[in-house]
């Protein structure tokens, strides 16, 4: 029989005869402290290989060790822990708890709880929810959700705006979002406690009504209460930092922060410099828009000997100011002046912009229920409950059944109960008895246990016939906002090479009419619409074609004459082609292929 291979951190280091015993022995050594507790060892029977890992960056999680169906963690340990006689680290030293990595989990049989423990188990969960990470652990009642929704939420919670750090006022992040008035979730989990989520929350508790409303919340759109927004709900700030330094160039020249003079090459309008102070840097708290200069800067000319028409060397400096990005605006929040490592002057400017929720901003609950704002409704038009509670948010009931995000429903009921009772509710997953507790709390406060209420129309005051499910859920504002994305262009900049419109919003580019869009116009037989898109609205060019040789002729502006570089003074004709095609012809010529255009009258 072949010997089992042993790998340490993926590197083959040796073999062994009895891998099962070896692995067991190594584990015992780890538990007794002979070997580092950061070592994990796994044996794969199928390939007959032993894997040992101790490199940094592995995700590991603690589990209680079980021997012959009995967990090593006993009551007395818990008492000692409570008295403060022993600490968490001691559990590991004592070999009661150990950390497993993903690999070693393959070799273990982990019991979810004491009641399901049997002889074969090797480990016991401290709590079933410890299997969840930071992101998935934020989801309350995640055991009631379908797995795709939990996955989605685990991804989305990272996009939520919140209090991302507490020293944001001292930082110059290139981009940063900050939620105003963040709240701790009414329905929390034990992982939220463990990760100190409450200190850096990223959402707010909304009163949510689940109903359709005039069709403005179709297809996952949301209706927000305007008055709630005006009270500051989901308002956030966006910070962007700009920086520039007075660079030194070889040859003793350097950049200079200043308000550029009119003669400088590339001088902008006087308007653009209006916010600058004498030192060439903006004043704090001035309102700036895209194109406004934040740091006025000039640089030495790129090529030293630039000779003007009189044969003298003119020292014309270039304008290299830093301006507010295209499509952005804001108030200068902070101006920071320091030095670079080389010792030259460095300026950092932070611009702040307040973002009140608007149409198209993205929101999500903690159950993968994301949507964009479809309507901002005045409070007087929002339906209200018997008690006069007006919801902050109206979501469409169609968002629930097919996605099976039951956790959201339970969270809303629990949130409502928590509000009435005045305390937070624990929504840790795999905790079965929460449902009854919250239901009882609701009935005790005079609500229906399911959370349904009668609502009254905001416009007519009539009672809405159907019972509406109203509850409190924690909603997150995600960093996909309309202001960062809205874009349209009619005319604008073009590329130098192809003369076609530039690409991308930041470059004020065109919206690409792609190949498949082109196919559609062909299929419709819309020949002239297609020509307009692809030629007239893109890179139309009037080429002058030589009637003799079929190559592109030249127009001499000074003599106002057309001539062919090959045939000389012969007849030539203007032809409308795309500049890209002219470029193709030029490139073919550069490849020693001679393309000729044979002209004839239009049919």
């Amino acid at each position, binding site marked *: 029989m072949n010997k089992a291979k042993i790998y340490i951190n993926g590197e083959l280091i040796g073999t062994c005869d009895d891998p099962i015993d070896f692995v067991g022995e190594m584990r015992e050594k780890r538990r007794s402290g002979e070997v580092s507790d950061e070592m994990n060892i796994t044996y794969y029977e199928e390939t007959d290989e032993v894997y040992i890992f101790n490199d940094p960056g592995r995700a590991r999680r603690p589990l209680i060790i079980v021997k012959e169906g009995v967990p090593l963690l006993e009551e007395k340990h818990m008492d000692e822990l409570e008295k403060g006689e022993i600490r968490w680290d001691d559990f590991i030293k004592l070999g009661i708890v150990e950390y497993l990595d993903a690999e070693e989990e393959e070799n273990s049989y982990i019991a979810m709880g004491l009641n399901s423990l049997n002889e074969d188990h090797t480990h016991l969960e401290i709590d079933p929810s410890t299997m969840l990470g930071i992101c998935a652990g934020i989801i309350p009642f995640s055991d009631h959700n379908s797995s795709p929704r939990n996955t989605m939420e685990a991804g989305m919670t990272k996009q939520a705006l919140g209090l991302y750090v507490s020293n944001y006022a001292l930082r110059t992040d290139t981009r940063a979002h900050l939620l105003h008035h963040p709240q701790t979730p009414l329905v929390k989990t034990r992982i939220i406690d463990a990760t100190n989520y409450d200190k850096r929350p990223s959402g707010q508790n909304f009163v949510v009504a689940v109903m359709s409303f005039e069709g403005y919340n179709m297809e996952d759109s949301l209706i927000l209460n305007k008055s709630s927004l005006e009270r500051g709900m989901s308002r956030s700030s966006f910070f962007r930092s700009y920086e520039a330094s007075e660079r030194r160039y070889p040859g003793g020249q350097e950049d200079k922060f200043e308000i550029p003079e009119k003669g400088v090459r590339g001088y902008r309008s006087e308007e653009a410099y209006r916010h600058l102070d004498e030192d060439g840097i903006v004043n704090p708290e001035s309102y700036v828009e895209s194109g406004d200069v934040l740091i006025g800067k000039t640089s030495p000319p790129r090529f030293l000997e630039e000779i003007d028409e009189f044969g003298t060397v003119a020292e014309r400096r270039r304008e290299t100011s830093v301006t507010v990005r295209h499509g952005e605006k804001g108030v200068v929040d902070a101006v920071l002046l320091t030095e670079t490592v080389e010792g030259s002057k460095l300026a950092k400017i932070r611009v702040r912009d307040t973002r009140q929720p608007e149409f198209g901003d993205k929101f999500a609950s903690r159950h993968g229920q994301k949507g964009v704002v479809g309507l901002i409704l005045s409070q007087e038009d929002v339906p209200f409950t018997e008690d006069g509670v007006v919801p902050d948010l109206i979501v469409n009931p169609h968002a629930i059944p097919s996605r099976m995000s039951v956790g959201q429903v339970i969270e809303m009921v629990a949130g409502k109960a928590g509000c009435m009772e005045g305390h937070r509710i624990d929504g840790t997953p795999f905790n079965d008895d929460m449902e009854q507790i919250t239901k009882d709390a609701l009935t005790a406060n005079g609500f229906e246990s399911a959370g349904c209420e009668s609502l009254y129309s905001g416009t007519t005051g009539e009672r809405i016939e159907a019972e509406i499910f109203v509850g409190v859920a924690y909603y997150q504002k995600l960093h996909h906002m309309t202001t960062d994305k809205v874009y349209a262009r009619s005319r604008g900049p073009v590329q130098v090479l192809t003369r076609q419109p530039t690409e991308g919003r930041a470059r004020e580019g065109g919206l690409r009419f792609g190949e498949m869009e*082109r*196919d*559609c116009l*062909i*299929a*419709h*037989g*819309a*020949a*002239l619409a*297609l*020509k307009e898109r*692809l*030629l007239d609205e893109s890179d*139309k060019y009037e080429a002058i074609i030589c009637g003799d040789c079929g190559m592109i002729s030249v127009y001499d502006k000074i003599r106002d004459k057309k001539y062919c570089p090959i045939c000389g003074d012969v007849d030539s004709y203007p032809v*409308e*082609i*795309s500049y890209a*095609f002219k470029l*193709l012809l030029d490139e*073919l010529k550069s*490849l020693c*292929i*001679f393309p000729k255009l*044979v002209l004839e009258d239009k*049919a």
Partner: protein
Amino acid sequence: MEIIDKKIIEKVEKIAKKKKAEFPESYIYDISEAYVRRELTEKELETLIIRVRKAYERARVEAGEAVGTVAAQSVGEPGTQMTMRTFHYAGVAELNVTLGLPRLIEIVDARKKISTPTMAIYFEDDKKEDEEFVKRLANRIGKSTMNDILKDFYINYAEMKVDGIIDEEKIEDKRLDKDEILANVEKAFKKVITINDNKLTFEPAKPSIRELRLLADKVRYLQISGVKNIGKVIIRKEDEWIIHTEGSNLGDILEIDGVDKVRTTTNDIHEIETVLGIEAARNSIINEALRTLEEQGLSVDVRHIMLVADMMAAEGSVRSIGRHGISGEKSSVLARAAFEETGKHLLRASIRGEVDKLTGIIENIIIGQPIPLGTGSVGVAMKSNKNKSK
């Protein structure tokens, strides 16, 4: 379908001709059927034909319609929904047939060697219920090796020989002829065999263990019956007895007596082309493509697929769609260069001094002219001699 009197059909045909209606056969038939069933008068029949003609003409594709693009989109869009992972077992559980996107690609690429050739063999009316006949035929078509009819087989290392004992029951079961088999075996192993009733003894030319083992394998896998290129066969009773095969050999199968020459098919389009001709190949492309799409639960109008099949078969042999076939044989240099292998086409065009007449769609998009399709396909003509008559 009830049979309608020929005279009525002829009559309808005549009226249709008079009304300048060029109907396909099925229309004539349907109209005749309605004529009989609804007991129409002569006048009513005429009105019916005129109305049908109008509807028929309205439904026709107009000149200048971009049928090719529409066909491409109509096949392409459902194609995006097809899953790449398709190695399904469809129809016959034991046979593994390529389906889904891989099969569709195979069809339009006009592959010479398809990945899973298979046949469905039907039988003539008098044989299709005859189980015994079908079974015997199946064994004749299907590949059998020595291994299938051996009762006992062992390699005798001590005496350096291979012994095999033939199982007569198995031969009987397979409806094979023992003498024929023995003759075959003797022919294949002329020098090394001794036959003693049912016991066959083989001795290698050179007495080495390697030779002995090679010989043993050779004996075991000797094909004793079957049609060339056909492997496993599966007999199935659907409404009648059908033989499904792994591998395909249409030409040889059709020569067998009792096989229905009309319904028996293969999924190898090239084989159909060589055996039955280009029209059959065209039909086969349509059937195969449509079946592949339908199997995936996608519905594409036949006419789009028919257009594809027509294009593929138009030149008299099956050509593929793509740079080795239709697209690579376009007359326009620019159109070819815009598709694939740009450099190659431009280089060749420059060497040969090709002229692009700029009559196609792609060329006109490149140079920025209205495409000769739809609204771009019309021009204004003027009679130049109009002035004289004034």
